């Protein structure tokens, strides 16, 4: 199975509607005593706004997960703990969410789960600029924290899903990779001290805050529970509720406020004076691997990521028709082996030094770049990039690229003005990279949604290996017409902690209302998970939940047995909804079983030594 192998329980047929309503009213009354009636919702249509979820179709076959029993909005930690204790008393489950983006934010069993919408807990409690950390409540978004810390000369990690994500939820409960990983790691690596309401309602302070009242460390002085409550991938609220968390901040060699001009949807950031945004183009997977390693070793990139041409085209365009036009230009379509690199610097000298190092690396690799270098240098490196691409596509496609390229240039000149045309691509890549503010364009918009696969935190070489084999699985589904044909390559990922490790996810875009596509994407994710094991590409990004634990545990030090013990120890009554963590009562639905059988009987042929795309 896969992440999509989670519970999809149906309503108990022995419970009548009247009994269910009575039960709901009882629980709502209890919740109201804690938070006040105003902050409790039980209306079916209102509850359904927590039920429709991104990726639900791959689990349930529809866009709907299961309707919760109620939604409550606590104001503080004490109210959270009181609700958790109430759930223990009542024999029901709870799940905490912030924005609640994704199927893992929903119930998987009808009328048994109380959702805690933590929107009212939205304060940035502290920005300790000297010690470079911030303390936040659950509903503080990465975007909000970023704009508040930039004036301090600091920045915060933002996950690639988009800057509207909760800083706390990403750090405590999920993975949280992003474009900035080379300098800021991923969410889990930035977690310091934490306030945690356990599944039985006890309030625990983990890390330095317990001993000193200060939040600077996740591991003491004082008790550390990080390895227990989050580990590698987080527990998706399956081990309680986190109500405060400190996260690391990082030096920001840039202005306190990013200047953004223009109007919707054509906002354009002015790239700060000493910053450079570059799309660095080389020819082939091996060269891209080398480029990543060398740039990481040179310590010149603040942001570095690999974006497939379809993803870049999506970010650059505001609608699918325009996207199709741009993506159809062979010159752009073949920008396969490229890294988006953002250099930040305190001074012109520092910027020039870093840019010179980047040029030297690209020269060695025969590459080029589209970057805001200014003047003849910008043109020279642009032409080098064009030469790389022209070699790939050949003279015929090069000529065929001209009308489309001209059309796009004319359109973009109208959008931004002729004078800013050369800034356009670097500026958009800069905005996407630094703010993570327009990522929905890149993947969700194409078919309506997307699923991800592969994407383990491994060496950069191994990540590329995963992208190669993942693309071969994806091709099978593209050929069936159930996944958007992005050339079988929509591998997105980044580098972490100086490039000591990296990840590449293989994204699959599709129409969530298309039942065939929904079924197929379940199978795609399952098949890529099998491939991850067979081709040693590591634990996939979506390898959470009970089915995955059973699948991957035996290959990874039996981590699933440890998770089971942790869950049983801290949550003896299974009160925290562990659908995406540990689910003692997991049963795959018929659709999942059928999908798994389809995959095992019709596997995509994989050539581990396949040539470049």
């Amino acid at each position: 199975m896969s992440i999509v192998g989670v519970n999809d329980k149906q309503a108990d047929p022995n419970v009548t509607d009247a009994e269910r309503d009575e039960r709901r009213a009882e629980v709502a009354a209890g919740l109201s005593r804690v938070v006040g009636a105003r902050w409790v919702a039980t209306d079916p249509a209102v509850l359904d706004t927590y039920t429709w979820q991104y990726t639900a179709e791959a689990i349930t076959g529809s866009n709907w997960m299961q309707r919760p029993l109620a939604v409550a909005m606590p104001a503080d930690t004490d109210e959270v703990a009181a609700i958790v204790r109430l759930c223990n008393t009542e024999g029901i489950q709870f799940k905490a969410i912030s924005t609640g983006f994704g199927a893992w934010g929903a119930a998987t069993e009808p009328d048994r789960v109380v959702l805690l919408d933590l929107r009212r807990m939205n304060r940035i409690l502290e920005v300790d600029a000297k010690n470079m950390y911030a303390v936040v409540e659950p509903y503080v978004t990465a975007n909000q924290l970023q704009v508040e810390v930039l004036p301090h000369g600091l920045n915060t990690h933002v996950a690639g899903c988009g800057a509207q994500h909760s800083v706390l939820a990403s750090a405590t409960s999920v993975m949280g990779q992003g474009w900035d990983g080379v300098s800021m790691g991923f969410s889990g690596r930035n977690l310091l001290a934490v306030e945690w309401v356990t599944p039985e309602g006890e309030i625990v302070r983990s890390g330095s805050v317990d001993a000193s009242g200060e939040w600077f460390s996740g591991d003491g002085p004082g008790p550390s529970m990080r390895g227990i409550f989050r580990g590698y991938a987080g527990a998706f609220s399956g081990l309680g509720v986190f109500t405060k968390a400190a996260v690391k901040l990082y030096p920001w060699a840039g202005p306190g406020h990013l200047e953004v001009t223009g109007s919707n949807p054509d906002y354009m950031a002015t790239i700060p004076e000493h910053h450079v945004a570059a799309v660095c183009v080389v020819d082939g997977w091996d060269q891209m691997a080398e480029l990543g390693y060398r740039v990481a070793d040179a310590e010149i990139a603040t942001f570095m990521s690999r974006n497939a041409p379809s993803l870049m085209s999506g970010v650059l365009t505001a609608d699918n028709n325009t996207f199709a036009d741009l993506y159809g230009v062979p010159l752009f379509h073949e920008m396969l082996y490229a890294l988006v690199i953002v250099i930040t610097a305190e001074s012109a000298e520092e910027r020039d030094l870093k840019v010179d190092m980047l040029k030297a690396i690209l020269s060695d690799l025969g590459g080029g770049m589209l970057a805001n270098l200014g003047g003849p240098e910008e043109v020279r490196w642009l032409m080098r990039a064009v030469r790389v691409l022209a070699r790939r596509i050949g003279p015929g496609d090069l000529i065929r690229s001209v009308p489309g390229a001209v059309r796009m240039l004319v359109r973009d000149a109208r959008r931004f003005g002729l004078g800013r045309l050369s800034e356009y691509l670097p500026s958009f890549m800069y905005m996407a990279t630094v703010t993570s503010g327009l990522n929905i364009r890149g993947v969700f918009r194409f078919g309506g949604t997307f699923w991800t696969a592969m994407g383990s935190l491994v060496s950069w070489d191994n990540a590329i290996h995963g992208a190669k084999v993942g693309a071969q699985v994806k091709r099978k589904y593209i050929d069936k017409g159930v996944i958007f044909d992005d050339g079988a390559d929509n591998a997105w990922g980044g580098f972490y902690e100086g490039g000591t490790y990296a990840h590449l996810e293989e994204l699959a875009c599709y129409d969530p209302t298309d039942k065939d596509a929904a079924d197929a994407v379940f199978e795609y994710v399952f098949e890529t998970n099998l491939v991850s094991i067979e081709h040693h590409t590591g634990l996939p990004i979506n390898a959470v939940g009970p089915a995955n634990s059973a699948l991957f545990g035996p290959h990874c030090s039996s981590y699933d047995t440890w998770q089971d013990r942790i869950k049983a120890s801290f949550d003896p009554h299974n009160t925290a909804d562990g659908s995406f963590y540990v689910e003692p009562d997991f049963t795959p639905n018929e659709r999942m079983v059928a999908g798994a059988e389809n995959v095992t009987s019709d596997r995509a042929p994989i050539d581990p030594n396949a040539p470049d795309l």
Partner: protein
Amino acid sequence: MDTTHPSSRHQGLEDLRYLAAKCVRCSLCKFPPLVKVESQATSSICPSIDTYGFHSHSGGGRVLMALSVLEGRSEITEATRDAIYQCTLCGGCDVSCKYVSDIEITEIMMALRARSFDATGPTDVQRRILDNLDRNGHPYESGTREDCLADIPGVRVGPGPTILLLGSAYAMSPERRTTLRNMVRLLGAAGIDVSVLGADEPDVGTLALALGDLKRFDRSASAAIGMLNDSGATEVVCADSEDWATIRAHWPKVAELGPPARHVVEVLDDAVRAGRLTLAHPVRVRAAWHDPCSLGRRSEPYQAWDGEVRKIQGQLLVYDPPRPVNRGSSGCYDPPRRLLRAVPGLELIELPRNRECSYCCGAGGGVAEAYPELATAAAMERQREAGTTGAELLVTTCPGCEQNLGGVEVAGVPTASIYDVLAASVWNQHDSFTNGS
């Protein structure tokens, strides 16, 4: 039952389903486009969710309620109805969604209101508004157009080449008479010979539309358009921004208005730029401009689209022909700014949330009448924002904004109508707002 009226081009929920189903519940509708956010304090674009909290009170949440109702998963209960109507229809969510996607959130919310209205009828408050419309020709308990006209002496009543639609919010509110008088005087000073329709002025249909009473809206709009088309007027000038948004974005669904229509600030802006109106006297004040939703993002002209959604390259959804999308940026933003910049001594300040990212004052969508707590909370939020800028005056033009923002002064920033500020500059007249000097 779907609320699609064959005689008009309103889209029912079923028509909009293909767009609603694109919602991935990402919550971006709760914030301005993220690249435009400047601080946590100004990081929301939705007064409704700021006040009520639940996801159902966001643009995306209402899209999902629409899907729930559409798919028969839920009935429209009293709680559902509150969640539907506890929204100013300001369109902020629509702008944010369309930075990254193309879901017509406002259209879906209006279709959901129509569904709710047809299924459950009006609430008590809504019933009173509709009864007033029937009885008085405007949504208020009392007031006549004759009373209003008595307060704006010299204005010509009856047909003429340029018809000024006063609307109801200005005309029926005695507190707004000075502003209305100034507006008419400014038009006269600019050499624009306007006439008003007096007791014959038709209801534009704004509130009926907001309440989801589409049949009534169609009747009102159709009658108003017919009257204006038959009047011989060569231009229609609109005083009330809410009505302006209705005329631009929704009347075309009913019938075509013959004479061109403009908002008063556009007319005055043209006059100042052409030298026909002189802003001679200094008004020394630091003024922040509040973009009314109805003058800005909601006033983009209606764009019909008759096409189909096709899949290419397997699962890529494209429109054939391409579907025009209003993203909020073509509203009326520059004319009022140019006017204020032309006032000697006036320092114009931009609020952090401006133009298509403006934060609603809280008055629209029938909220001021039915959910005063939401109207007050939104106005306080906007006032606080103005207070952070160092502004001494918050200037706007929509009567709802003027009324609602002026009703709370948490940050010590009084509210003024742009017409009062301009009048101060033209006639050195400072009695109509407090901070001019």
